[in-house]
Protein backbone atom coordinates (compact mmCIF):
# COMPACT_ATOMS: atom_id res chain seq x y z
CA UNK A 1 0.00 0.00 0.00
CA UNK A 2 1.19 3.49 -0.73
CA UNK A 3 1.21 6.12 2.00
CA UNK A 4 -2.01 7.58 0.57
CA UNK A 5 -3.64 4.16 0.66
CA UNK A 6 -2.39 3.47 4.17
CA UNK A 7 -3.81 6.69 5.56
CA UNK A 8 -6.80 7.71 3.41
CA UNK A 9 -7.69 11.39 3.67
CA UNK A 10 -11.34 10.91 4.72
CA UNK A 11 -10.15 8.83 7.67
CA UNK A 12 -7.63 11.40 8.80
CA UNK A 13 -10.30 14.10 8.63
CA UNK A 14 -12.69 11.89 10.56
CA UNK A 15 -10.11 11.16 13.26
CA UNK A 16 -9.31 14.86 13.50
CA UNK A 17 -13.00 15.71 13.90
CA UNK A 18 -13.33 13.09 16.64
CA UNK A 19 -10.36 14.50 18.54
CA UNK A 20 -11.60 18.07 18.09
CA UNK A 21 -15.19 17.45 19.21
CA UNK A 22 -14.69 17.53 23.01
CA UNK A 23 -12.61 20.69 22.61
CA UNK A 24 -15.42 22.60 20.92
CA UNK A 25 -18.40 21.30 22.88
CA UNK A 26 -19.15 21.21 26.57
CA UNK A 27 -22.34 19.17 26.21
CA UNK A 28 -22.01 16.08 28.36
CA UNK A 29 -25.07 14.66 26.56
CA UNK A 30 -23.30 14.83 23.20
CA UNK A 31 -20.11 13.34 24.64
CA UNK A 32 -22.10 10.55 26.30
CA UNK A 33 -23.88 9.57 23.10
CA UNK A 34 -20.58 9.65 21.21
CA UNK A 35 -19.05 7.24 23.73
CA UNK A 36 -21.83 4.73 23.03
CA UNK A 37 -21.33 5.18 19.29
CA UNK A 38 -17.61 4.47 19.64
CA UNK A 39 -18.12 1.32 21.70
CA UNK A 40 -21.06 -0.12 19.74
CA UNK A 41 -19.30 0.96 16.55
CA UNK A 42 -16.15 -0.98 17.48
CA UNK A 43 -18.23 -4.11 18.09
CA UNK A 44 -20.28 -3.64 14.91
CA UNK A 45 -17.18 -3.11 12.75
CA UNK A 46 -15.67 -6.41 13.96
CA UNK A 47 -18.98 -8.20 13.59
CA UNK A 48 -19.33 -6.77 10.08
CA UNK A 49 -15.95 -8.19 9.07
CA UNK A 50 -16.88 -11.59 10.48
CA UNK A 51 -20.42 -11.76 9.12
CA UNK A 52 -20.21 -9.96 5.81
CA UNK A 53 -16.61 -10.20 4.66
CA UNK A 54 -15.65 -13.60 6.06
CA UNK A 55 -19.20 -14.87 5.52
CA UNK A 56 -19.39 -16.41 9.00
CA UNK A 57 -22.80 -15.50 10.31
CA UNK A 58 -22.18 -15.46 14.05
CA UNK A 59 -24.60 -13.90 16.50
CA UNK A 60 -22.34 -14.15 19.55
CA UNK A 61 -20.98 -10.61 19.50
CA UNK A 62 -23.22 -9.23 22.28
CA UNK A 63 -21.92 -12.14 24.36
CA UNK A 64 -18.25 -11.29 23.80
CA UNK A 65 -19.07 -7.65 24.55
CA UNK A 66 -20.87 -8.69 27.73
CA UNK A 67 -18.22 -11.13 28.90
CA UNK A 68 -15.58 -8.44 28.40
CA UNK A 69 -17.69 -6.10 30.55
CA UNK A 70 -18.33 -8.67 33.26
CA UNK A 71 -14.79 -10.05 33.38
CA UNK A 72 -13.26 -6.59 33.75
CA UNK A 73 -15.96 -5.53 36.18
CA UNK A 74 -15.57 -8.59 38.38
CA UNK A 75 -11.78 -8.36 38.43
CA UNK A 76 -11.92 -4.67 39.39
CA UNK A 77 -14.82 -4.84 41.86
CA UNK A 78 -13.58 -7.88 43.74
CA UNK A 79 -10.11 -6.41 43.86
CA UNK A 80 -8.54 -9.40 42.09
CA UNK A 81 -6.30 -7.08 40.08
CA UNK A 82 -6.15 -3.40 39.10
CA UNK A 83 -8.97 -2.32 36.73
CA UNK A 84 -6.73 -2.05 33.66
CA UNK A 85 -5.60 -5.64 34.25
CA UNK A 86 -9.30 -6.54 34.17
CA UNK A 87 -9.46 -5.32 30.57
CA UNK A 88 -6.59 -7.60 29.60
CA UNK A 89 -7.86 -10.54 31.62
CA UNK A 90 -11.29 -10.13 30.03
CA UNK A 91 -9.71 -10.17 26.57
CA UNK A 92 -7.71 -13.30 27.40
CA UNK A 93 -10.78 -14.99 28.82
CA UNK A 94 -12.83 -14.20 25.72
CA UNK A 95 -9.97 -15.31 23.46
CA UNK A 96 -9.83 -18.64 25.24
CA UNK A 97 -13.60 -19.11 25.27
CA UNK A 98 -14.08 -18.08 21.63
CA UNK A 99 -11.29 -20.46 20.66
CA UNK A 100 -12.81 -23.44 22.45
CA UNK A 101 -16.30 -22.61 21.17
CA UNK A 102 -15.22 -21.59 17.68
CA UNK A 103 -13.16 -24.70 17.01
CA UNK A 104 -16.20 -27.02 16.96
CA UNK A 105 -18.88 -24.49 15.92
CA UNK A 106 -17.10 -23.07 12.88
CA UNK A 107 -17.63 -26.36 11.08
CA UNK A 108 -21.22 -25.22 10.77
CA UNK A 109 -22.27 -22.95 7.94
CA UNK A 110 -24.77 -20.17 7.34
CA UNK A 111 -27.98 -20.50 9.28
CA UNK A 112 -26.68 -23.37 11.42
CA UNK A 113 -23.76 -21.32 12.69
CA UNK A 114 -26.14 -18.44 13.41
CA UNK A 115 -28.38 -20.80 15.36
CA UNK A 116 -25.59 -22.28 17.44
CA UNK A 117 -24.07 -18.90 18.30
CA UNK A 118 -27.51 -17.57 19.18
CA UNK A 119 -27.84 -20.45 21.65
CA UNK A 120 -24.53 -19.34 23.16
CA UNK A 121 -25.90 -15.82 23.55
CA UNK A 122 -28.97 -17.09 25.42
CA UNK A 123 -26.97 -19.47 27.62
CA UNK A 124 -24.48 -16.80 28.68
CA UNK A 125 -27.26 -14.31 29.40
CA UNK A 126 -28.96 -16.87 31.68
CA UNK A 127 -25.68 -17.80 33.37
CA UNK A 128 -24.87 -14.15 34.08
CA UNK A 129 -28.26 -13.78 35.75
CA UNK A 130 -28.05 -17.05 37.71
CA UNK A 131 -24.46 -16.98 38.94
CA UNK A 132 -25.40 -14.45 41.58
CA UNK A 133 -22.41 -14.74 43.94
CA UNK A 134 -20.01 -14.02 41.10
CA UNK A 135 -21.94 -11.76 38.74
CA UNK A 136 -24.40 -10.03 41.04
CA UNK A 137 -27.33 -11.86 39.43
CA UNK A 138 -30.31 -10.01 37.97
CA UNK A 139 -29.48 -6.76 39.72
CA UNK A 140 -26.15 -6.73 37.97
CA UNK A 141 -22.69 -5.85 39.08
CA UNK A 142 -22.68 -2.72 41.23
CA UNK A 143 -19.94 -0.48 42.52
CA UNK A 144 -17.44 -1.02 39.72
CA UNK A 145 -14.46 1.28 40.36
CA UNK A 146 -13.30 3.65 37.60
CA UNK A 147 -10.58 2.64 35.18
CA UNK A 148 -7.13 3.67 36.29
CA UNK A 149 -3.73 3.19 34.79
CA UNK A 150 -0.28 4.17 36.04
CA UNK A 151 -1.67 6.47 38.71
CA UNK A 152 -4.16 8.18 36.39
CA UNK A 153 -7.85 7.64 37.09
CA UNK A 154 -10.36 7.96 34.26
CA UNK A 155 -13.24 9.81 35.85
CA UNK A 156 -14.97 12.25 33.53
CA UNK A 157 -16.98 11.52 30.39
CA UNK A 158 -14.28 13.29 28.47
CA UNK A 159 -11.68 10.78 29.65
CA UNK A 160 -13.85 7.88 28.56
CA UNK A 161 -14.58 9.62 25.28
CA UNK A 162 -10.90 9.45 24.39
CA UNK A 163 -10.50 5.87 25.62
CA UNK A 164 -13.59 4.71 23.70
CA UNK A 165 -12.69 6.49 20.48
CA UNK A 166 -9.05 5.41 20.80
CA UNK A 167 -10.27 1.84 20.91
CA UNK A 168 -12.76 2.34 18.07
CA UNK A 169 -10.29 4.06 15.73
CA UNK A 170 -7.59 1.55 16.69
CA UNK A 171 -9.93 -1.31 15.84
CA UNK A 172 -10.72 0.30 12.49
CA UNK A 173 -7.06 0.92 11.72
CA UNK A 174 -6.06 -2.64 12.62
CA UNK A 175 -8.87 -4.19 10.58
CA UNK A 176 -8.21 -1.86 7.66
CA UNK A 177 -4.57 -2.98 7.52
CA UNK A 178 -5.61 -6.57 8.01
CA UNK A 179 -8.21 -6.62 5.25
CA UNK A 180 -5.69 -5.16 2.80
CA UNK A 181 -3.12 -7.84 3.52
CA UNK A 182 -2.49 -11.50 2.87
CA UNK A 183 -4.75 -12.25 5.83
CA UNK A 184 -7.68 -10.19 4.53
CA UNK A 185 -7.37 -11.61 1.03
CA UNK A 186 -7.45 -15.11 2.49
CA UNK A 187 -10.63 -14.27 4.42
CA UNK A 188 -12.42 -12.79 1.42
CA UNK A 189 -11.18 -15.70 -0.70
CA UNK A 190 -12.70 -18.42 1.47
CA UNK A 191 -15.96 -16.52 1.78
CA UNK A 192 -16.20 -16.59 -2.03
CA UNK A 193 -15.01 -20.17 -2.56
CA UNK A 194 -13.68 -22.43 0.15
CA UNK A 195 -12.60 -25.04 -2.38
CA UNK A 196 -10.56 -22.56 -4.40
CA UNK A 197 -9.11 -20.91 -1.29
CA UNK A 198 -7.86 -24.20 0.15
CA UNK A 199 -6.46 -25.17 -3.26
CA UNK A 200 -4.38 -21.96 -3.11
CA UNK A 201 -2.83 -23.19 0.13
CA UNK A 202 -5.08 -21.37 2.62
CA UNK A 203 -5.77 -23.33 5.79
CA UNK A 204 -9.45 -22.37 5.79
CA UNK A 205 -10.52 -23.73 9.21
CA UNK A 206 -7.60 -21.97 10.88
CA UNK A 207 -8.32 -18.62 9.24
CA UNK A 208 -11.98 -18.90 10.21
CA UNK A 209 -10.92 -19.44 13.80
CA UNK A 210 -8.46 -16.51 13.68
CA UNK A 211 -11.04 -14.00 12.49
CA UNK A 212 -13.66 -15.38 14.90
CA UNK A 213 -11.33 -14.96 17.90
CA UNK A 214 -9.98 -11.61 16.76
CA UNK A 215 -13.38 -9.96 16.40
CA UNK A 216 -14.54 -11.54 19.67
CA UNK A 217 -11.58 -10.01 21.52
CA UNK A 218 -12.27 -6.62 19.93
CA UNK A 219 -15.85 -6.81 21.23
CA UNK A 220 -14.54 -7.83 24.64
CA UNK A 221 -12.26 -4.78 24.85
CA UNK A 222 -15.18 -2.51 23.99
CA UNK A 223 -17.25 -4.26 26.67
CA UNK A 224 -14.58 -3.69 29.32
CA UNK A 225 -14.47 0.05 28.57
CA UNK A 226 -18.28 0.06 28.60
CA UNK A 227 -18.41 -1.34 32.14
CA UNK A 228 -15.87 1.17 33.48
CA UNK A 229 -17.73 4.03 31.83
CA UNK A 230 -21.15 3.04 33.19
CA UNK A 231 -19.70 1.66 36.46
CA UNK A 232 -22.46 -0.93 36.25
CA UNK A 233 -23.45 -3.98 34.17
CA UNK A 234 -26.58 -6.09 33.92
CA UNK A 235 -27.23 -9.37 32.06
CA UNK A 236 -30.07 -7.93 29.95
CA UNK A 237 -27.76 -5.34 28.39
CA UNK A 238 -25.96 -8.05 26.42
CA UNK A 239 -28.89 -10.02 25.07
CA UNK A 240 -31.23 -10.07 22.12
CA UNK A 241 -31.97 -6.30 21.89
CA UNK A 242 -28.26 -5.50 21.53
CA UNK A 243 -27.95 -8.22 18.88
CA UNK A 244 -30.78 -6.68 16.87
CA UNK A 245 -29.19 -3.28 17.23
CA UNK A 246 -25.78 -4.49 16.01
CA UNK A 247 -27.31 -6.29 13.02
CA UNK A 248 -29.30 -3.15 12.22
CA UNK A 249 -26.10 -1.08 12.33
CA UNK A 250 -24.38 -3.48 9.95
CA UNK A 251 -27.26 -3.65 7.48
CA UNK A 252 -27.94 0.07 7.47
CA UNK A 253 -24.30 1.09 7.31
CA UNK A 254 -23.29 -1.67 4.91
CA UNK A 255 -21.11 -4.54 6.10
CA UNK A 256 -19.21 -5.00 2.85
CA UNK A 257 -17.11 -1.98 3.74
CA UNK A 258 -15.14 -1.54 6.92
CA UNK A 259 -16.57 1.85 7.90
CA UNK A 260 -20.17 0.91 7.06
CA UNK A 261 -21.08 -0.54 10.48
CA UNK A 262 -19.59 2.52 12.23
CA UNK A 263 -21.75 4.72 10.00
CA UNK A 264 -24.64 2.48 11.02
CA UNK A 265 -23.76 2.98 14.69
CA UNK A 266 -23.98 6.76 14.18
CA UNK A 267 -27.33 6.56 12.42
CA UNK A 268 -28.93 4.07 14.81
CA UNK A 269 -27.74 5.70 18.01
CA UNK A 270 -28.84 9.17 16.96
CA UNK A 271 -32.08 7.83 15.56
CA UNK A 272 -32.88 6.25 18.90
CA UNK A 273 -32.07 9.48 20.68
CA UNK A 274 -34.37 11.37 18.29
CA UNK A 275 -37.19 8.86 18.71
CA UNK A 276 -36.97 9.16 22.47
CA UNK A 277 -36.81 12.93 22.37
CA UNK A 278 -39.72 13.56 20.01
CA UNK A 279 -42.06 10.69 20.81
CA UNK A 280 -41.83 10.58 24.58
CA UNK A 281 -45.21 12.27 24.97
CA UNK A 282 -46.90 9.97 22.47
CA UNK A 283 -45.33 6.78 23.82
CA UNK A 284 -44.67 7.28 27.52
CA UNK A 285 -42.88 3.99 27.98
CA UNK A 286 -39.98 3.93 25.52
CA UNK A 287 -38.61 0.42 25.62
CA UNK A 288 -36.25 -1.56 23.42
CA UNK A 289 -39.37 -3.01 21.76
CA UNK A 290 -40.51 0.43 20.63
CA UNK A 291 -37.06 1.09 19.18
CA UNK A 292 -37.22 -2.28 17.44
CA UNK A 293 -40.36 -1.21 15.52
CA UNK A 294 -38.55 1.81 14.06
CA UNK A 295 -35.36 -0.11 13.36
CA UNK A 296 -37.39 -2.85 11.68
CA UNK A 297 -39.04 -0.38 9.32
CA UNK A 298 -35.67 1.22 8.60
CA UNK A 299 -34.09 -2.15 7.78
CA UNK A 300 -36.87 -2.95 5.30
CA UNK A 301 -36.55 0.43 3.60
CA UNK A 302 -32.74 0.17 3.40
CA UNK A 303 -32.82 -3.39 2.07
CA UNK A 304 -35.23 -2.38 -0.68
CA UNK A 305 -33.61 0.89 -1.75
CA UNK A 306 -29.94 0.47 -0.71
CA UNK A 307 -29.11 -3.24 -0.54
CA UNK A 308 -25.45 -2.39 0.12
CA UNK A 309 -26.35 -0.12 3.02
CA UNK A 310 -25.36 3.54 3.25
CA UNK A 311 -21.72 2.72 2.53
CA UNK A 312 -22.68 0.71 -0.54
CA UNK A 313 -24.81 3.62 -1.69
CA UNK A 314 -21.93 6.05 -1.18
CA UNK A 315 -19.49 3.96 -3.21
CA UNK A 316 -22.12 3.54 -5.92
CA UNK A 317 -22.50 7.33 -6.03
CA UNK A 318 -18.72 7.55 -6.38
CA UNK A 319 -18.69 5.10 -9.28
CA UNK A 320 -21.53 6.87 -11.07
CA UNK A 321 -19.97 10.30 -10.66
CA UNK A 322 -16.59 8.99 -11.85
CA UNK A 323 -18.27 7.53 -14.93
CA UNK A 324 -20.16 10.72 -15.67
CA UNK A 325 -17.33 13.16 -14.98
CA UNK A 326 -14.67 10.79 -16.31
CA UNK A 327 -16.42 10.69 -19.67
CA UNK A 328 -16.97 14.42 -19.67
CA UNK A 329 -13.27 14.89 -18.94
CA UNK A 330 -12.20 12.77 -21.90
CA UNK A 331 -14.63 14.32 -24.36
Amino acid sequence: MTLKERFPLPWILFAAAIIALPLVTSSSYLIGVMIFIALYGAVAVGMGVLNEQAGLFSLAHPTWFGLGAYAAGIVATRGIAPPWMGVIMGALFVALLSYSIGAPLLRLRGFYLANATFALLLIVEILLAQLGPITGGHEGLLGIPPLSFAGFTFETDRHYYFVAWGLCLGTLWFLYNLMNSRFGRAIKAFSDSEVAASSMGINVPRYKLYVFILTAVMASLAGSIFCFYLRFTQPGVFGFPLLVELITMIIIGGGKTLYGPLLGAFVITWLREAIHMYLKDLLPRMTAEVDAIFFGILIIVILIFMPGGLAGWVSQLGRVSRRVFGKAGRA
Partner: protein
Amino acid sequence: MAKPVGPDLILQASGVRKYFGGIHALEDVAFSVKAGAILSMIGPNGAGKTTFINVVSGIYAPDAGEIRFQGQDIAGLPAHLVAARGIGRTFQLEELFGSLSVLENVMVGCHTRMRAGMFAAGFSLPSMRREDRQMREEAMQDLAMVGLDGRAHDAISQLPLGERKLVGIARALAMKPTLLMLDEPAGGLAAHEVDRLVRLLYTLLDNGLTLFIVEHNMPFVMSISEHIVVLDEGAKIAEGPPGEIRANEDVIKAYLGEEH
Protein backbone atom coordinates in the same frame (compact mmCIF):
# COMPACT_ATOMS: atom_id res chain seq x y z
CA MET B 1 10.88 -23.73 -10.39
CA ALA B 2 11.90 -26.73 -8.30
CA LYS B 3 13.34 -29.71 -10.11
CA PRO B 4 11.39 -32.93 -9.48
CA VAL B 5 13.29 -35.45 -7.39
CA GLY B 6 13.92 -39.07 -8.22
CA PRO B 7 12.80 -40.56 -11.55
CA ASP B 8 11.10 -38.38 -14.11
CA LEU B 9 7.63 -39.46 -12.98
CA ILE B 10 6.24 -36.50 -11.06
CA LEU B 11 2.82 -37.94 -10.26
CA GLN B 12 2.07 -41.63 -9.84
CA ALA B 13 -1.48 -42.77 -9.15
CA SER B 14 -2.25 -46.39 -8.40
CA GLY B 15 -5.50 -48.07 -7.42
CA VAL B 16 -7.22 -44.74 -6.78
CA ARG B 17 -10.82 -45.34 -5.79
CA LYS B 18 -13.58 -42.92 -4.86
CA TYR B 19 -17.20 -43.88 -4.30
CA PHE B 20 -20.07 -41.50 -3.61
CA GLY B 21 -22.65 -43.86 -2.10
CA GLY B 22 -23.44 -46.29 -4.90
CA ILE B 23 -21.74 -44.21 -7.57
CA HIS B 24 -18.29 -45.46 -8.47
CA ALA B 25 -16.72 -42.16 -9.46
CA LEU B 26 -13.20 -43.61 -9.63
CA GLU B 27 -12.47 -47.34 -9.87
CA ASP B 28 -8.83 -48.31 -9.33
CA VAL B 29 -7.38 -45.64 -11.58
CA ALA B 30 -3.63 -45.99 -12.19
CA PHE B 31 -1.26 -44.00 -14.39
CA SER B 32 1.76 -41.72 -14.17
CA VAL B 33 2.59 -38.22 -15.28
CA LYS B 34 6.05 -37.58 -16.70
CA ALA B 35 7.83 -34.45 -15.48
CA GLY B 36 8.01 -31.64 -17.99
CA ALA B 37 5.31 -33.10 -20.23
CA ILE B 38 1.65 -32.53 -21.02
CA LEU B 39 -0.66 -35.37 -20.06
CA SER B 40 -4.36 -35.11 -20.80
CA MET B 41 -7.29 -36.99 -19.39
CA ILE B 42 -10.41 -37.32 -21.51
CA GLY B 43 -13.69 -39.15 -21.16
CA PRO B 44 -17.44 -38.66 -21.57
CA ASN B 45 -19.43 -36.55 -19.13
CA GLY B 46 -19.50 -38.09 -15.69
CA ALA B 47 -16.44 -40.25 -16.36
CA GLY B 48 -14.78 -39.08 -13.15
CA LYS B 49 -12.22 -36.66 -14.57
CA THR B 50 -12.96 -33.75 -12.26
CA THR B 51 -13.28 -36.15 -9.33
CA PHE B 52 -9.75 -37.31 -10.08
CA ILE B 53 -8.41 -33.73 -9.97
CA ASN B 54 -10.31 -33.16 -6.73
CA VAL B 55 -8.82 -36.30 -5.20
CA VAL B 56 -5.28 -35.34 -6.18
CA SER B 57 -5.67 -31.76 -4.95
CA GLY B 58 -7.07 -32.92 -1.62
CA ILE B 59 -10.65 -31.67 -1.96
CA TYR B 60 -11.75 -35.31 -1.59
CA ALA B 61 -9.90 -38.06 0.22
CA PRO B 62 -9.71 -41.23 -1.90
CA ASP B 63 -11.36 -44.38 -0.49
CA ALA B 64 -8.35 -46.42 -1.54
CA GLY B 65 -5.16 -46.11 -3.55
CA GLU B 66 -1.92 -44.25 -3.55
CA ILE B 67 -1.03 -40.90 -5.10
CA ARG B 68 2.67 -40.14 -5.15
CA PHE B 69 3.83 -36.64 -5.93
CA GLN B 70 7.60 -36.34 -6.32
CA GLY B 71 7.88 -39.73 -4.67
CA GLN B 72 5.81 -38.92 -1.56
CA ASP B 73 2.31 -40.19 -0.88
CA ILE B 74 -0.15 -37.29 -0.77
CA ALA B 75 -3.40 -39.29 -0.84
CA GLY B 76 -5.82 -37.91 1.75
CA LEU B 77 -3.72 -34.84 2.57
CA PRO B 78 -5.85 -31.69 3.06
CA ALA B 79 -5.99 -29.34 0.07
CA HIS B 80 -3.92 -26.53 1.56
CA LEU B 81 -1.02 -28.91 2.26
CA VAL B 82 -1.19 -30.39 -1.24
CA ALA B 83 -1.05 -26.85 -2.60
CA ALA B 84 1.96 -26.04 -0.42
CA ARG B 85 3.83 -29.01 -1.90
CA GLY B 86 3.63 -27.50 -5.37
CA ILE B 87 0.45 -28.68 -7.05
CA GLY B 88 -1.54 -25.85 -8.57
CA ARG B 89 -4.92 -26.21 -10.19
CA THR B 90 -7.67 -24.38 -12.02
CA PHE B 91 -11.39 -25.06 -11.95
CA GLN B 92 -13.92 -25.96 -14.58
CA LEU B 93 -16.18 -23.12 -13.39
CA GLU B 94 -13.22 -20.81 -12.60
CA GLU B 95 -14.07 -20.45 -8.88
CA LEU B 96 -12.51 -16.99 -8.86
CA PHE B 97 -12.89 -14.74 -5.82
CA GLY B 98 -15.59 -12.28 -6.83
CA SER B 99 -15.00 -9.83 -3.97
CA LEU B 100 -11.35 -9.37 -4.97
CA SER B 101 -9.87 -7.59 -7.97
CA VAL B 102 -8.07 -9.49 -10.74
CA LEU B 103 -4.66 -8.70 -9.22
CA GLU B 104 -5.80 -9.63 -5.71
CA ASN B 105 -7.08 -12.96 -7.02
CA VAL B 106 -3.60 -13.69 -8.32
CA MET B 107 -2.08 -12.49 -5.03
CA VAL B 108 -4.13 -15.09 -3.17
CA GLY B 109 -2.10 -17.56 -5.23
CA CYS B 110 1.03 -16.16 -3.50
CA HIS B 111 -0.40 -17.14 -0.10
CA THR B 112 1.92 -20.04 0.67
CA ARG B 113 4.97 -18.00 -0.33
CA MET B 114 4.13 -15.22 2.12
CA ARG B 115 4.79 -15.17 5.85
CA ALA B 116 2.90 -12.18 7.33
CA GLY B 117 0.71 -13.23 10.24
CA MET B 118 -2.29 -11.53 11.78
CA PHE B 119 -0.42 -9.04 13.98
CA ALA B 120 2.22 -8.15 11.41
CA ALA B 121 -0.61 -7.44 8.95
CA GLY B 122 -2.87 -5.63 11.42
CA PHE B 123 -0.13 -3.34 12.69
CA SER B 124 1.16 -2.91 9.13
CA LEU B 125 4.77 -3.70 10.04
CA PRO B 126 7.43 -2.69 7.50
CA SER B 127 8.41 -6.32 6.89
CA MET B 128 4.83 -7.12 5.95
CA ARG B 129 4.54 -4.13 3.63
CA ARG B 130 7.79 -5.05 1.89
CA GLU B 131 6.58 -8.61 1.36
CA ASP B 132 3.22 -7.40 0.07
CA ARG B 133 4.87 -5.05 -2.42
CA GLN B 134 7.15 -7.78 -3.71
CA MET B 135 4.33 -10.27 -4.15
CA ARG B 136 2.25 -7.62 -5.90
CA GLU B 137 5.02 -7.25 -8.47
CA GLU B 138 5.33 -10.99 -8.91
CA ALA B 139 1.57 -11.33 -9.29
CA MET B 140 1.71 -8.65 -11.99
CA GLN B 141 4.30 -10.76 -13.80
CA ASP B 142 2.03 -13.78 -13.63
CA LEU B 143 -0.79 -11.67 -15.03
CA ALA B 144 1.50 -10.43 -17.79
CA MET B 145 2.30 -14.05 -18.58
CA VAL B 146 -1.35 -14.69 -19.47
CA GLY B 147 -1.65 -11.26 -21.11
CA LEU B 148 -3.97 -9.68 -18.55
CA ASP B 149 -1.69 -7.17 -16.79
CA GLY B 150 -3.83 -4.42 -18.34
CA ARG B 151 -6.87 -5.59 -16.39
CA ALA B 152 -5.19 -5.97 -12.99
CA HIS B 153 -7.49 -3.58 -11.17
CA ASP B 154 -10.76 -4.65 -12.76
CA ALA B 155 -13.42 -6.60 -10.91
CA ILE B 156 -13.80 -10.25 -11.88
CA SER B 157 -17.38 -9.60 -12.98
CA GLN B 158 -16.10 -7.21 -15.67
CA LEU B 159 -14.15 -9.97 -17.44
CA PRO B 160 -15.47 -12.21 -20.23
CA LEU B 161 -15.32 -15.98 -19.72
CA GLY B 162 -12.13 -16.50 -21.71
CA GLU B 163 -10.22 -13.98 -19.62
CA ARG B 164 -11.60 -15.41 -16.39
CA LYS B 165 -10.12 -18.76 -17.33
CA LEU B 166 -6.78 -17.03 -17.83
CA VAL B 167 -7.03 -15.33 -14.41
CA GLY B 168 -7.56 -18.81 -12.97
CA ILE B 169 -4.33 -19.93 -14.63
CA ALA B 170 -2.41 -16.85 -13.47
CA ARG B 171 -3.66 -17.42 -9.92
CA ALA B 172 -2.37 -21.01 -10.01
CA LEU B 173 0.95 -19.85 -11.54
CA ALA B 174 1.42 -17.45 -8.62
CA MET B 175 1.78 -20.52 -6.42
CA LYS B 176 4.94 -21.33 -8.40
CA PRO B 177 3.77 -24.93 -8.73
CA THR B 178 5.73 -27.88 -10.10
CA LEU B 179 2.60 -29.55 -11.43
CA LEU B 180 -0.33 -27.58 -12.83
CA MET B 181 -3.69 -29.30 -13.19
CA LEU B 182 -6.11 -27.60 -15.57
CA ASP B 183 -9.77 -28.56 -15.44
CA GLU B 184 -11.28 -27.92 -18.90
CA PRO B 185 -9.16 -24.86 -19.73
CA ALA B 186 -10.57 -24.69 -23.28
CA GLY B 187 -14.22 -25.20 -22.29
CA GLY B 188 -16.39 -22.41 -23.68
CA LEU B 189 -13.51 -20.64 -25.44
CA ALA B 190 -13.68 -19.31 -29.00
CA ALA B 191 -11.22 -20.69 -31.57
CA HIS B 192 -8.80 -17.76 -31.36
CA GLU B 193 -8.86 -17.96 -27.58
CA VAL B 194 -7.97 -21.65 -27.77
CA ASP B 195 -4.98 -20.78 -29.99
CA ARG B 196 -3.84 -18.25 -27.41
CA LEU B 197 -4.26 -20.86 -24.68
CA VAL B 198 -2.17 -23.39 -26.59
CA ARG B 199 0.64 -20.88 -26.99
CA LEU B 200 0.47 -20.09 -23.28
CA LEU B 201 0.62 -23.76 -22.31
CA TYR B 202 3.69 -24.31 -24.48
CA THR B 203 5.36 -21.33 -22.83
CA LEU B 204 4.64 -22.83 -19.41
CA LEU B 205 6.07 -26.13 -20.57
CA ASP B 206 9.22 -24.37 -21.74
CA ASN B 207 9.49 -22.86 -18.25
CA GLY B 208 9.73 -26.35 -16.80
CA LEU B 209 6.15 -26.88 -15.64
CA THR B 210 4.38 -30.22 -15.87
CA LEU B 211 0.80 -29.98 -17.14
CA PHE B 212 -2.10 -32.28 -16.41
CA ILE B 213 -5.15 -31.33 -18.44
CA VAL B 214 -8.72 -32.57 -18.22
CA GLU B 215 -10.58 -31.61 -21.36
CA HIS B 216 -13.54 -32.22 -23.66
CA ASN B 217 -12.28 -30.30 -26.68
CA MET B 218 -10.87 -33.14 -28.81
CA PRO B 219 -8.93 -31.20 -31.44
CA PHE B 220 -7.28 -29.24 -28.62
CA VAL B 221 -6.37 -32.37 -26.67
CA MET B 222 -5.12 -34.26 -29.71
CA SER B 223 -2.92 -31.40 -30.84
CA ILE B 224 -1.33 -30.54 -27.51
CA SER B 225 -0.92 -33.81 -25.59
CA GLU B 226 2.00 -36.18 -25.62
CA HIS B 227 0.09 -38.78 -23.68
CA ILE B 228 -3.64 -39.31 -23.11
CA VAL B 229 -5.52 -41.25 -20.44
CA VAL B 230 -9.14 -42.14 -21.18
CA LEU B 231 -11.63 -42.55 -18.38
CA ASP B 232 -15.12 -44.02 -18.66
CA GLU B 233 -17.50 -44.58 -15.76
CA GLY B 234 -14.67 -44.10 -13.30
CA ALA B 235 -12.28 -46.63 -14.82
CA LYS B 236 -9.32 -46.19 -17.14
CA ILE B 237 -10.14 -47.77 -20.49
CA ALA B 238 -7.15 -46.66 -22.53
CA GLU B 239 -3.83 -44.86 -22.34
CA GLY B 240 -1.29 -43.85 -24.96
CA PRO B 241 -0.18 -41.23 -27.47
CA PRO B 242 -2.91 -39.33 -29.39
CA GLY B 243 -2.59 -41.46 -32.56
CA GLU B 244 -3.25 -44.66 -30.64
CA ILE B 245 -6.16 -43.20 -28.68
CA ARG B 246 -7.85 -41.99 -31.85
CA ALA B 247 -7.85 -45.52 -33.26
CA ASN B 248 -8.77 -47.30 -30.01
CA GLU B 249 -12.02 -49.32 -30.30
CA ASP B 250 -12.98 -48.93 -26.63
CA VAL B 251 -12.55 -45.17 -26.75
CA ILE B 252 -14.71 -44.85 -29.84
CA LYS B 253 -17.35 -47.00 -28.17
CA ALA B 254 -17.29 -44.91 -24.99
CA TYR B 255 -17.76 -41.72 -26.93
CA LEU B 256 -20.15 -42.83 -29.68
CA GLY B 257 -21.91 -45.70 -27.95
CA GLU B 258 -22.17 -49.36 -28.98
CA GLU B 259 -23.09 -50.11 -32.62
CA HIS B 260 -26.18 -52.23 -33.02
